[in-house]
């Protein structure tokens, strides 16, 4: 996703003949990978976030804001050193699996393997049980699962596993709106900035703002999630989108919310946008608010 979309469909043929036998991947490998990534993501924040926090600590004009940013950096250093979760909200676990179409998954139920991986990682990493089994009954499941699983079938014979831990202080502040074509970029801009303004201090700024534009109602929300976990040093391939990201970041940082909402010029560390074709009548836009504790990690099997 991300490149300018071609105006013609791609031809599906790429290979003269099918592989004689698919590559076997044991779901138990997926279980172990999910468990490992879940622990790692919680104790070791990415260098991209850490660097952005360090830079923000230098640029922030509010003294209190600088002090808070330095505390956050110290917290991440401590968590890495002592291998403890950096934040007590170890999140709802979101797993993206990109499964090569030449892979044959064997040895059990894929979804069960993912949830068992979440259970194991939660136990081994001393993570928090943050999941209720029913949104209305609200009883804690006691194993931090199930997670949310997104599966894509892609070319190839490997499996790409991405595990993200989404805290709900920030998730709760996310919004989606079905704009109309006439609303255009100005409408997108208003909605994104308004959403961050309403999130204010409660979502643990400095934020990483993930924006999905296009697709359908549900795909748009998923694009926003993919945007929020895109590494901060990986910029969008399209120049016009990069420009919009920069402009939105600047506007958000003029809101004055600042680190932890205590005022300042670093309300967000980044705005990441992902786009997808949409219907002639629509312009869906979703904003997934990410806190500074932007935890995700990936691996190939």
């Amino acid at each position, binding site marked *: 996703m991300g490149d300018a979309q071609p105006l013609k469909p791609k031809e599906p043929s790429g290979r003269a003949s099918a592989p004689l036998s698919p590559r076997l991947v044991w779901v138990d490998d997926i279980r172990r990978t999910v468990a490992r990534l879940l622990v790692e993501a919680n104790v070791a924040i990415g260098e991209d976030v850490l660097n952005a926090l360090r830079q923000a600590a230098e640029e922030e004009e*509010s003294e*209190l804001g600088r002090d*808070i940013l330095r*505390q*956050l950096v*110290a*917290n991440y250093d*401590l*968590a890495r050193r*002592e291998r*403890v*979760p*950096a*934040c*007590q*909200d*170890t999140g709802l676990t979101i797993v993206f699996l990109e499964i090569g179409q030449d892979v044959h998954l064997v040895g059990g139920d894929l979804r069960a393997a993912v949830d068992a991986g979440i259970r194991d990682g939660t136990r081994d990493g*001393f*993570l*928090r*049980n*943050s999941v209720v089994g029913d949104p209305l009954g*609200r009883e*804690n499941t*006691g194993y931090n699962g199930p997670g949310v699983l997104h599966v894509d079938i892609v070319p190839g014979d490997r499996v790409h596993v991405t595990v993200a831990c989404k805290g709900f*202080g920030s998730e*709760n502040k996310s919004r989606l709106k079905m704009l109309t074509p006439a609303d255009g970029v100005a409408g997108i801009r208003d909605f994104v*900035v308004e959403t961050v*303004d309403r999130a*204010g*201090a*409660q*979502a*643990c700024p400095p934020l990483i703002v993930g924006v999905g534009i296009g697709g359908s109602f549900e795909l748009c929300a998923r694009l926003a999630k993919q945007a929020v976990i895109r590494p901060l040093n990986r910029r969008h391939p399209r120049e016009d989108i990069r420009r919009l990201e920069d402009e939105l970041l600047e*506007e958000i940082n*003029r*809101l*004055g*919310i*600042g680190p*932890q*909402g*205590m*005022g*300042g*010029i670093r309300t967000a560390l980044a705005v990441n946008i992902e786009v997808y074709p949409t219907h002639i009548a629509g312009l869906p836009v979703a904003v997934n608010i990410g*806190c*500074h*504790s932007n935890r995700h990690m990936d691996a190939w099997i």
Partner: protein
Amino acid sequence: MFLTIDPVLPDDAAEMLKAGDQVMITGELLTARDAACGRLAAALKAGDPLPVDLAGRVIYAVGPTPAKPGQVIGSAGPTTAARLLPYLEPLLKAGVKALIGKGDWPPDAATLFARYGAVYLAAVGGAGALIARTVRAAEVIAYPDLGPEAVHRLSVERFPAFVAVDARGADLYRQARDRWRRGR
């Protein structure tokens, strides 16, 4: 400023604290977040006995991670306070003198803190590992079935926080916005 909570907030303390003050808390906190506050509020409404006397106490909205072997507590940073708004008045009425969480509240909350002479303190959200180092002892004292949301008694030493809403209703978040806002 140092605050000692033994195990109640001293009588004059809430009056002395001003929005923007940094405090270091030593003493005893009770933990309660969404589920526990809901149960406490329901018990108060029904006139049922509470598992712990709330008069003068300080509530910390936190759901910690489990302690690793050799640790007192896992990661233990604040959760969003504003979600507790439906329970705020019953808790303050029952005598809670301070609440610790993160993030701002809708405007009515400041009026409630002022009416009951209580304060809202903000800790740094997402600094759970760092904050856990100020916890010297932790023990579940009510609602163990709630897991991380159970009510714990925490003994803390030099726990850092900011006075975010004081007993006169002054609000640090609003002041900060007024001062730093440039756009819109």
